[in-house]
């Protein structure tokens, strides 16, 4: 009984229950895809960082005893899209089942749901085990204002609460205290920058004519590419004076 399980480029969650123990009847598939590199014009560093992090993740899984089939852009170029690549793997592996983790993009969610409908074998969509709330959280929590959604989660997960279940500091919201302009004389904390050689990936992107924007130094990519580097970044973040304004990390 062979199970093929797909891991998407933004699903590098080493703590997922899929990876609890190595199982030779499970084949994990990871693929660098033209459809993902080209559907929008990405920053060069974004392409490099996602692909490099995917490769590191695949390497770590293999090292932990898992079976991984990894497709570089070179390997995947002959497939029209993700479903075609998956169909090829399912046949080659004589798979009895196919699973994927809940994608975080509507387009991929649709594509994979349609793909599964076209298959005769068993299919399953697993939780990505990343978010605090379920996919249908909008209908389960108060959502007319973010504030009440947030308070419900603070209560549910006992975050910044006193022993009596009250918000620390006597109120839920300190937004007003975080809105000052940056004082000029503030010493600047040293950022933690990595310097990773991804010239092979850069050359591959050139080879495939992937359109991108922005600047990159493929000899010294500064983004964290693994869980351990991400942990280092978190530690540095807590220790550094950057705590001065933690709130400026939001992502529009």
């Amino acid at each position, binding site marked *: 009984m062979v199970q093929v399980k797909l891991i998407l480029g933004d*699903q590098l969650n080493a703590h997922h229950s899929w990876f609890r123990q190595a199982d030779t009847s499970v084949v994990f598939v990871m693929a660098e895809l033209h459809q993902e590199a080209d559907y929008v014009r990405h*920053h060069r560093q974004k392409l490099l960082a996602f692909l490099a992090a995917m490769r590191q993740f695949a390497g770590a899984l293999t090292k932990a005893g898992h079976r991984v089939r990894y497709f570089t852009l070179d390997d995947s170029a002959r497939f029209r899209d993700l479903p075609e690549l998956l169909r090829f793997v399912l046949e080659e592996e004589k798979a009895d089942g196919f699973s994927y983790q809940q994608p975080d993009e509507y387009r991929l969610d649709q594509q994979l749901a349609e793909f599964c409908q076209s298959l005769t074998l068993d299919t399953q969509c697993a939780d990505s085990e990343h978010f*605090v*709330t379920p996919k249908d959280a909008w209908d389960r929590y108060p*959502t007319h204002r973010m504030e009440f*959604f947030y308070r419900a989660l603070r209560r549910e997960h006992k975050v910044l609460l006193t022993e009596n279940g009250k918000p620390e500091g006597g109120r839920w919201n300190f937004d007003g205290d975080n809105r000052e302009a940056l004082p000029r004389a503030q010493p600047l904390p040293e*950022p933690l920058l990595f310097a990773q050689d991804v010239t092979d990936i850069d050359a591959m992107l050139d080879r495939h004519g992937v359109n991108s924007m*922005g600047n990159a130094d493929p000899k010294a990519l500064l983004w964290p590419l693994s869980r351990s580097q991400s942990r280092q970044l978190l530690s540095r973040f807590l220790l550094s004076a950057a705590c001065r304004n933690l709130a400026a990390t939001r*992502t529009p």
Partner: protein
Amino acid sequence: MTPHGWSLYHSRLSFSLNTKMLHPMEVIRAVEGHWREHPDRVSLAQAEGFIRQVLGWREYVRALYWRHMPGYGRRNYLRAQRSLPSYYWTGKTRMACMAHAIGQSLDYAYAHHIQRLMVTGNFALLAGVHPDEVDQWYLGIYIDAVEWVEMPNTRGMSQYADGGLMGSKPYAASGQYIHKMSHYCENCVYSVREKTGEGSCPFNSLYWHFLDRNRERLKDNARLKLVYANWDRQSLEKRQATLQTAARYLREIDQL
């Protein structure tokens, strides 16, 4: 917000979070624990502000995304139609705040929340750029941009294309506000003190042009009543001069 040190006041943890290399709860517990152990180093307000972003906004936009897709991606409440000016891909503009925010984004695939919202997003909103174009730009340029988080923040919070689902009013601001919150304006060829005429900060006149042309869709917003009252109190002559300046800037938008 300052022209120096691109990563100084944010953590750049969002790439690790959005690729799922870090779990949100692990980051939240680390920050909460750090505050409990070292209340002298990090204040409750700072810890709460950060946790609000990760536990509050991040989960909220994902919930919103899944509840409202695919229709959300087609919303254009303000009927904005313009193309994104070419300097979004080059950083080549004389507006100092825009040149810096875009230039840094091109160099580092990162800009902090305030630059994204108050500078580049605000300009696109004031100029009336089609939300599809703004969406594509944000989705491409930022290292942490995955559609579920990028789209509600861009189309909703920044461009008000969802008509107020994400934010209670458009995140529109004049040059005065950018000046108050940053150090960009002192070295800009445009004068942030001037509202009209050649050399005036484009954000100033475009701000009023935005409010004036979208009046029918925004006038009933309680949070904008005072703003419209301020506009109406200005003399007709002054209002016309402001709108004329803005109209000229919009005609020459690629040359600003």
